[in-house]
């Protein structure tokens, strides 16, 4: 009898089992049943399923809501128009090449307060327009882009925190998007624009990536008030790379501690205005680029301020260079002494990259002074500024610890002095 009871118990239990998985399926069925414009609130908990949303509804998480899936399809697919997702955690655990956490197409959607974990893509926008994504965190595994746009226009991205992905925000053939106040770290490229025009990047922070931001064959991009910091871990690292792009406006950004602050390659008619370019190994580097304007920037603490190869026709005027000798005879705020940046080191290492080991070698400075490059290869600022155009603050340790270090050194060596002298 006891065995019978046990079997009965198991049977009853097994009757309840499918009920659990049915409960998981209800999220999609709730969406299917919902009328246009309603708000669906998701109860706190974990949901192992994929959702497809194609009508204008609001899907809102109450408390901790996690949608999770390892299937080939995206965890959430959004299409149609005016879909809103709020306060949801989304995790895609699949490791196939095209795996995506959220796939968006259509118009005027709004995604906010999401937290996305993915092994490949975070959010993909495919022919999506007027979409707003904000207050969202994306963490990847360096195998896919955080946000990936394909032919998507007029979208807005604000207050996103993206780490450890391939490209933080990748735009291809996407125009007129606004990327505002995002923070992208430890990824390959922070922002990556390909064949995309009239985009605005502003107040973003791109830190410790291989390249802070890359603009490739993109026109009329506006880059302002961004910070490009410590993009210096790779041999190809730089703050901003402008490649074959035209009419870019780069104003009031900070480029600090990058390998190269701004790298301009085969690009024309770009304007670099009023930026702070500080503590980089190379401030601005030109390669086969002409007709660019570099004006009113503040160059401070860079190991090499500016270097140019095959780029003789750029307008580099009225910048502040801390390395320049400055004399202002007529009081107009501009120095009468022309500032020249010699590309000798770059020309040398271009031919034999191994010679880069001589970077800042004491002997190389000597060599550079003997063998000056011909005048047409020099990058010349004919009117360097006397004063900085941007505020520069100084990083320092507390003076107490420094005094401690100083006094400690003096005391230690004095006692050794006495010890050394007294010794019979």
């Amino acid at each position, binding site marked *: 009898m006891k065995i019978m009871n046990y079997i009965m118990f198991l049977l009853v239990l097994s009757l309840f089992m499918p009920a659990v998985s049915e409960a998981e399926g209800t999220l999609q069925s709730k969406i299917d049943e919902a009328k246009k414009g309603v708000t669906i609130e998701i109860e706190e908990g974990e949901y192992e399923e994929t959702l497809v949303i194609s009508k204008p509804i609001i899907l809102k998480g109450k408390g901790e809501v996690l949608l999770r899936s390892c299937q080939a399809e995206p965890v959430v697919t959004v299409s149609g128009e005016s879909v809103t997702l709020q306060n949801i955690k989304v995790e895609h655990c699949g490791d196939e090449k095209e795996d995506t956490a959220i796939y968006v197409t259509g118009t005027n959607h709004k995604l906010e307060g999401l937290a996305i974990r993915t092994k490949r893509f975070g959010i993909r926008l495919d022919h999506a327009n007027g979409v707003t994504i904000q207050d969202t965190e994306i963490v990847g595994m360096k195998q896919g882009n955080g946000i990936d746009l394909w032919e998507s226009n007029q979208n807005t991205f604000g207050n996103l925190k993206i780490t450890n992905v391939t490209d933080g925000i990748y735009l291809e053939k996407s125009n007129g998007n606004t990327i505002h106040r995002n923070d992208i770290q430890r990824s390959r490229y922070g922002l990556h624009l390909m064949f995309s025009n009239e985009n605005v990047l502003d107040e973003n922070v791109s830190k410790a990536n291989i390249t802070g931001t890359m603009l490739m064959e993109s026109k009329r991009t506006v880059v302002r008030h961004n910070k490009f910091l410590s993009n*210096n*871990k*790779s*041999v*190809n*690292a730089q703050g901003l790379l402008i490649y074959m792009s035209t009419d870019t406006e780069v104003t009031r950004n900070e480029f600090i*501690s990058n*390998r190269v602050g701004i790298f301009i390659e085969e690009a024309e008619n770009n304007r670099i205005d009023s930026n702070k370019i*500080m*503590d980089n*190994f190379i401030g601005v580097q030109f390669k086969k680029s002409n007709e660019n304007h570099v004006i009113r920037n503040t160059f*401070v*603490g*860079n*190991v090499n301020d500016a270097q140019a190869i095959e780029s003789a026709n750029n307008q580099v005027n009225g910048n502040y260079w*801390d*390395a320049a000798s400055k004399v202002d005879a007529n009081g107009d705020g501009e120095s009468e002494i022309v500032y020249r940046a010699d590309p000798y080191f770059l020309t*040398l*290492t271009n031919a*034999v*990259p*191994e*010679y*880069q*080991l*001589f*970077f*800042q*070698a*004491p*002997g*190389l*400075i*000597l*060599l550079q002074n003997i063998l000056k490059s011909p005048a047409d290869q020099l990058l010349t600022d004919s009117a360097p500024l006397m004063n*900085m155009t941007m505020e*520069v*603050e*100084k*990083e*320092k*340790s507390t*003076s107490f*610890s*420094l*005094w401690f*270090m*100083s*006094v*400690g*050194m*003096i005391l*230690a*060596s*004095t006692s*050794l*002095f006495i010890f*050394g*002298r007294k*010794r019979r």
Partner: protein
Amino acid sequence: MWNIWRSELRMTIRQRSYYSFLVLWVAVLSLLFLVQKSAPSLSGYTNMTGTVVNVALYIIPLFMLIIGSFSIANEMENGQWRLLNTYPLFSMSYISGKIGGQFTAQTIVFTFSYGISLAIGLVSGNGFSSEWLWSIYFFSISLIFFFLVLGITLGCFVSTRWQALSISVIIWFFLIMIWPTALIGVLGLVPYPWIAPLMKLALIVNPAEFIRVSLVINLDGGAVFGQAYDSLVPFLDPPYGILNYILYFIGFLAITLLFSMLMLEWRKRR
């Protein structure tokens, strides 16, 4: 060995010329620290760091080579070494005592000057990052060590102080001033694929370059050396970097000690 160490330390510290170094270091270092006032930023590897490093590279190796080679050449010249040879003293303990004594004496005077200069800098209202200060300090101490050892080895080879001086200057000029020029000249003659391994070999041969490159890598600037040294950079980056640095230090010491010992033994027999 400890006796030699002690007597070397005592003799050096009691020399009047020793205190001229104090003046020299204080003058150079406090000028460098005062210059920082005009530099708006000071963390990591900046142009200011580059300047300080270059000044140190110009001045420290030259003096250390001269001091090191003189400390032996002097005793050779005035016959003190012959006198010492009448005692049962190993060449090994003689040289290591010399190195130890000189290094202690020079480190003391450098540390003292560094402390004073830092105080001068602080009094004049400058701010520094302590990580940066320690990097520069250890960089200078390493330079002092390597070039003292090199100088002492040189001292074992020469017979007069005049020789010691001229060869010291030649070595300094070669290793510091025209090193890149010479390498670029020589490497222009070899087939292209040889350049990379020869550059790495040259890096190990020249302690000044080795220390400089380690410093740049330590201050997070490894990427600046480019693709060709991608494999080398993690090798010198902490924490493994410190280990490799110590290994290099031991290897360098072993080779120079061996050479100077052989030389002294050969001289003894003559």
